[in-house]
Structure formats: structure tokens, C-alpha cells
């Protein structure tokens, strides 16, 4: 913090030195013309020049330091500028005295003269500070606007990419064509079953495709979508798929980003149960605890082995959680003992949110 402050101040000071020197020279010329001096004494141009350079230099250095240290706190900043100019005047007078080999006590003996110098330094200093400060502010605002723009564009791009990925995930060709061929085959033998499967597919596609454009869904809506999805697979896989959804009714209205849980269920089928001879079970559970909502998708399928390289959907979920909730959103993937895979999503949850909405 402190070294950084010194570093910044030093850099800015170096940039300001030439301007400051020119300005101080002008002041020295002015003072010589006005014959500025304590009563009954005379000050040469050289003396004026040295003192004004020294005082100006210190004032400049301290003001820049003050500006860097208290940039964002207005009252403190003004006070700090005052102190900087006062100290700058004293230090400058001391340095000037040393350079010109004058007894610095002269400034104590001639108090009126000292205050005149202080007044001058404050007056000119304030003008310069005001000028520099305004200029810095303008530059800063411009940079901020630029950053903001870049940030907005980046997040827009990310959102579009995520939406695209979600969209691709929903209309995964294997799922779509396999389901369609099942429906076609059922329409001959068992038209009622075929029709209800078609209805499930239609509802699933409609909800999931429109969901990608919305930001917030609810647990209830997400579970309904998942049930449509699982019913489709139940027809396709028969006894090889068993599932249960355990979500208490009071969590139905809990807000949840759309299509966050569905990919977990899809993974459980695709990498857990579908490739397993004999299939297995999926258990979906949701509960809330200490301001967090936990949603768990556990299966008794093949386990971790098939997931390692195939985690596109999982990576996508993790990125979404991170961008939505930062460190508060978590995706944990682990073994479901004795066999299978378990994915847990945790997101922040305000339990009374559901109440006043009802």
C-alpha cells in the first residue's frame, strides 16, 4: 500500500516537474517585478527563483501524494491539500535557505513575510491543484467508461455463448432422434403411449427452449421439466430406469436459474445409467439449510469413470454458477457409494422470499 503510493506519487511528480519549473519561474519573475521582500530589504531574482522552485517543488510533491492517498474522500482531500501546501512552503523555505546559505530563522523573525509567502503558495497552489485535479477526473471518467463498455461487451458475449451452449444441449441430436424414433415406433403399436410421449417431448422442448432466454425459474418449474425428460427416458429405457424426485412443496417457489439441474439429470442418464447393463436409479433431492439451497442428483450408474472427459455440460454449469453467484455457488461432484455418481449444486437462498410472493 505505502510503497505503491510512493511509487505512484514519484511517477506523477516526475511528469509534473517540468511544468512546475516553468510555473515557478514565472512566479519568480513576477515577484522580482513586484519587488516582493520584507520591509527594508531587497531580494534578488536568483533568491526569488531558488525559493520559488524549492517551495513549488515541495508543494507539488506533497499535493500529488495527498491526491493519491485521499483521492476518493473529498473533505479529507481538501484538508490534505492544505497541509501539503503548508508543509511544502516550510520545506521549500528550508531547502532554499540551505542552497543559498541563508539563516532560515529569518522566516521566523519576519512572520508577516512568511505568511505572505504561505498565502501566495496556497493561492497559486490551489489554482494548479484545481487544474490538475479536474484533468485527472476527466481522464479517470473516460477510462472508467471504457472499462465499463468492455465489461458489458464481454459479459454480453459470454451470455450469448452460454445460451448457445444451453440451446445445443437441449436439442442434443441423439436425444432428439432417439426419442422421435421411439415415438414413431409407438404410434403403430400403442398410439396412446406414443401420443403421450410426443406431448412430453413437446412440453420439454417448449419449456427448455424458452427458459434459456429467461434469467430466473423456480424449483417447481425446473422439476416439472425434469419429470417430462425422465418420463421420456422411462419409455425408452423401460425397467432399466427408475427415478424419484423428492422436493418438499414449500420449496416449489424457490428461485433457481433455469437449466441448471437438468444437465445433471441428463449426465446421470447419459454417462451413468444408459451405458450400464441393467440400468439403475436416479434420485433427485432438494432442501434448504442456513441460507443455502442444496439440490442433489444421485445415480447408481457407472460412476466417475465416464464423466472425466465428458464434462462439457458440467463445466458449463460451473461457469454459470460462478458468474451468477461468485464463490457462493458451488457444484460438487463425487462418488455415490456404493456405486454411482452424485452431483450437488449449492446456491444462496433467502427462505422468506417464497412467503411474501404467495
Amino acid at each position, binding site marked *: 500500500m505505502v510503497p505503491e503510493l510512493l511509487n505512484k506519487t514519484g511517477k506523477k511528480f516526475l511528469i509534473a516537474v517540468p511544468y512546475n519549473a516553468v510555473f515557478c519561474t514565472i512566479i519568480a519573475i513576477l515577484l522580482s517585478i513586484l519587488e516582493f521582500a520584507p520591509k527594508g530589504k531587497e531580494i534578488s531574482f536568483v533568491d526569488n527563483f531558488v525559493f520559488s522552485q524549492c517551495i513549488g517543488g515541495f508543494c507539488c510533491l506533497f499535493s500529488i501524494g495527498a491526491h493519491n492517498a485521499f483521492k476518493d474522500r473529498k473533505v479529507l482531500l481538501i484538508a490534505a491539500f492544505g497541509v501539503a501546501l503548508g508543509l511544502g512552503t516550510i520545506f521549500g523555505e528550508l531547502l532554499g535557505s540551505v542552497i543559498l546559505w541563508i539563516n532560515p530563522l529569518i522566516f521566523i523573525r519576519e512572520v508577516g513575510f512568511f505568511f505572505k509567502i504561505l498565502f501566495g503558495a496556497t493561492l497559486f497552489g490551489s489554482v494548479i491543484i484545481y487544474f490538475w485535479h479536474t484533468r485527472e477526473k476527466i481522464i479517470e471518467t473516460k477510462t472508467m467508461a471504457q472499462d465499463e463498455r468492455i465489461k458489458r461487451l464481454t459479459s454480453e458475449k459470454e451470455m450469448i455463448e452460454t445460451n448457445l451452449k444451453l440451446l445445443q444441449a437441449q436439442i442434443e441430436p441423439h436425444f432428439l432422434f432417439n426419442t422421435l*424414433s421411439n415415438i414413431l*415406433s409407438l404410434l*403403430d403399436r400403442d398410439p396412446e403411449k406414443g401420443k403421450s410421449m410426443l406431448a412430453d417431448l413437446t412440453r420439454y422442448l417448449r419449456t427448455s427452449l424458452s427458459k434459456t432466454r429467461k434469467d430466473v425459474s423456480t424449483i417447481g418449474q425446473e422439476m416439472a421439466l425434469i419429470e417430462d425428460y425422465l418420463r421420456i427416458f422411462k419409455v425408452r429405457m423401460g425397467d432399466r430406469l427408475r427415478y424419484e424426485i423428492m422436493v418438499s412443496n414449500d420449496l416449489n417457489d424457490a428461485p433457481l436459474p433455469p437449466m441448471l439441474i437438468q444437465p445433471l439429470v441428463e449426465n446421470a442418464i447419459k454417462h451413468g445409467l444408459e*451405458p450400464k447393463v441393467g*440400468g439403475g436409479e436416479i434420485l433427485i433431492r432438494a432442501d434448504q439449510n442456513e441460507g443455502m439451497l442444496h439440490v442433489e442428483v444421485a445415480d447408481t450408474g457407472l460412476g466417475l469413470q465416464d*464423466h472425466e*472427459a465428458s464434462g462439457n455440460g458440467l*463445466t458449463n454449469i460451473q461457469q454459470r454458477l460462478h458468474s451468477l453467484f461468485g464463490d457462493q455457488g458451488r457444484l*460438487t461432484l463425487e462418488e455415490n457409494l456404493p456405486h454411482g455418481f452424485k452431483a450437488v449444486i449449492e446456491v444462496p437462498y433467502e427462505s422468506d422470499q417464497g412467503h411474501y410472493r404467495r
Partner: protein
Amino acid sequence: MNPIRAIIADDEAPLRVSLKKKLESLWPELVICGEAEDGLKAVELIQESQPNIAFLDIRMPGHSGIEVARKTGGMCHVVFITAYEEYAVDAFVSEAIDYIVKPVTEERLKITVDRLKKRISSMPEPSPELKETMQRVLSALESRKTPTRLQWIKVQHGDGVRLDPVEEVCYFQASYKYPAVMTKEGESLIRKTITSLSQELDPNKFWRIQQAGKPLS
């Protein structure tokens, strides 16, 4: 002449039934001598009943359709059924192999049936040439699968194993029997050799440094 016999292997029952019905109407003389719901049973069935034709779904539990064809190489003509042309099977259609996509239409199945009839009349018994062509085509087919990059890594956490994102890994270090992985949460052990890791990790993100020098993040 013996009747021509076929088996159908698909893990989804409705699809087996529907293919069977379509075949019955398009090719009434064909005998469906067995059905299998996974790759293991399909291999057994082919070995036991020695059919002339096997209709194999590519994605099946146990063994994939391609693995089934490999294991029973040349014993019968193979028709792959796939929901989606992920293997671009089109390029591999040969004397030994045909494919149809789901949903199977009668028009497309008719073409396959005609091809099969022709091939079987010219090559009634399985021959070494058939076997050879098939093995060649199958290995080409399998190599088409693009290798996927490791995105999650199995990590030992206490009693259980967890999948952690590779993105959060700072480095892997091969100083123990199993390599250690360092994430922001600390060091854990993984069950993969450094050699297999270096093949599976994205080479743009991880470099292998010999003699375990300074870790790279």
C-alpha cells in the same frame, strides 16, 4: 437353401420391436433369430446363433455396436443403426458394413435390404476377406472419434473420491507413487499416471517439466 437369419441389438425395446416389424413387412423370408438389449448379449447371441446379418445400435451398454462388430468380426454382415451421424459412417459403407439412421424409414431400410440380399447371394458363407475388410473399416471408424480433453479429474478427498475441475488445478507433481495435484484448496492424490495425464490434458494449458523442477501454474 437355409433361410437367411438376422439378430437385432438395441437397448431401447420399442426400437427393436419397430425395426422387427418393418423388416417383417419388407423382407418376409428373413428370420429374426434373436434380440439383444446390450452389447454383451449381442456378442453372445451372434456367437451362439451364427446369423447372416446383425443389426447393431452403435450406442449400447456393455459394448458399443462397433465393439460388438469387432469382437465377432466377419461372422456376419453388419448394419449399424445410429441416431446421429457422429461417426460419419457414410464414408465407411463397404461390402461388410451398412448403416441406417434413426428414425428408420421404410424407404431407407428397403435400400439396405436390397443391398444385403445382393451381398448374401454373392457371399453366402463368412469368408476371411469379409473379416479382413471389416476389421480394417472398424479400426478406421474407431479412430474417427476425436479425443476429448480431460476437464475433470478424480481426486481423493478423505474417504471418498470427488471430481474437481481441471481448471482449478495449479500443477501436478509426480513425486509419490501416484501423482499429487495442487489446487487452491491444497494438495491431494490422484490415480492417474503422469504419462496418461500428459496425453489427456490440454497441451496449451499444461506443460510437462522433467525432473520435477519449479511448478508451473
